[in-house]
């Protein structure tokens, strides 16, 4: 159904100093879907993700969020509707966990403080950190920080959540707690695009896996097909390497 389309990325291109990183990428995302972007380092996954909310401004192509085109002129309003989770968390280090989850609700969405506080506590509960509301980011483990940053994004009622290698800065022990939160979100019907090397997550939570290399989408399909019966030699080679070392 067309009105279920949340995100529509059309022919996005990006080059740095003449080096093309994205060579015309198109994909779309419907409400409740989780798509996982995989591919070797330098394949353009993160750049693509950053182009969606103009953290990196694409050279060409169009992006639509719920039918509205993403442009320079409406970017702040668009970004408020797109959650973004960074590899290195980027929690606001001078604010408590509670204030981290609260501040953009108040300053960006114009919510009242008590409503923002209540919502913040709900989201912290959801990521299992209700007891850390008063702590500062530097007092938390990496996994806890990443869960706070997910709560921070969720509290904005995002129409889509983008994850940029959310577990790459974590050791395996802490990766699990973040992946569990992400899986729970996928189950609950959150619309998500996830760049990750966590193949267990891709296998279990993705509606579709998109394999990128050298700025192109090489292949995309359901996890069953991609993991067991991918058509492209490159996809199989990549997944084999990941399976051996991941």
């Amino acid at each position, binding site marked *: 159904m067309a009105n279920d389309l949340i995100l529509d990325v059309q022919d996005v291109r990006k080059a740095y100093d003449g080096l093309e990183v994205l060579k015309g990428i198109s994909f779309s995302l419907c409400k409740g879907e989780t798509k996982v972007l995989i591919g070797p380092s330098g394949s353009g996954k993160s750049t693509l993700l950053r182009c969606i*909310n103009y*953290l990196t401004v694409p050279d060409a192509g169009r992006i639509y969020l719920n039918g509205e085109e993403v442009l320079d002129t409406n970017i*702040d*309003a*668009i*970004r*408020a*509707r*797109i959650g*973004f989770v*960074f590899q*290195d968390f*980027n*929690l*606001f*280090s*001078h604010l408590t966990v509670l204030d981290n989850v609260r*501040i*953009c609700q108040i*300053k*960006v*969405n114009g919510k009242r403080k008590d409503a923002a506080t209540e919502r913040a506590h709900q989201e912290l509960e959801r990521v299992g950190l209700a007891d850390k509301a008063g*702590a*500062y*980011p*530097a*007092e938390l483990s990496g996994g806890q920080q990443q869960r706070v*940053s997910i709560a*921070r*994004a969720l509290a*904005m009622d995002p129409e889509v959540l983008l994850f940029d290698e959310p577990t790459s800065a974590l050791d395996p022990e802490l990766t699990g707690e973040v992946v569990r939160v992400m899986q729970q979100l996928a189950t609950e019907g959150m619309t998500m695009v996830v760049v990750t090397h966590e193949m267990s997550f891709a296998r279990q939570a993705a509606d579709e896996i998109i394999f990128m290399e050298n700025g192109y989408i090489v292949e995309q399909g359901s996890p069953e097909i991609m993991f067991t019966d991918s058509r492209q030699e490159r996809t199989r080679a990549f997944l084999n390497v990941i399976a051996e070392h991941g």
Partner: protein
Amino acid sequence: MDIYDVLLRDFPFLLKGLGVAIVLLAALLSIGFVLGMAICLTQLYGPKSRFVQWPLVIYERIFRGVPIIIMLFIFFYGISGVVDISAFGAAILAMGLRSGAYQSQIFRSAFQSVPAGQMMAARAMGMSKMSAIRNIIFPQAARHAIGPWTNEFSSEIKETSLAYVIGVVELTRQAHYIITSTQGNILTVFAVVALLYFILNRTGNSLLYAFERKLAVPGFEK
């Protein structure tokens, strides 16, 4: 009358001089703060055009590169030829402009020490650049700036004494007035004056350090 009687008698004049020094200090630091912050924000977030940036660089180089005593003379004798300006006004202007040049660089390095990811995260959540600077970057930069700013504070307290060369009746000049009436006891008078400067300096720094501790965030990296 021995020196101690004179000191006791004239101590109110020393306190008055100290008062003038404090007003001069407060005025020059305030001008320097506003100017320094404006320059820092323009350098970091303002238009990249040369017509905006170069004048700021030239201003900052000149005021950091010329001795304050020369600046005091230039401002006093230079400006008083054009408009009527008091020695006190000239001192505030020269020292305020100079402090602005120094403070701009204190603030600039403090702002730059805030990791780029903080701005990126704020913008990614829909904050405007202005809002992100005010709510996210400034509070962190301010914490980084207090330490270096205590240096500027200490230097400027001491440099208010130079305003004496253009005739501002601040603490050092008051001391000179007393000395002219008590031949031979220069050291004692200056020792008292030194103590007053020292007490002012320590008090100010203690307050700044207390402020720094009050703002301290657990685990926040310096």
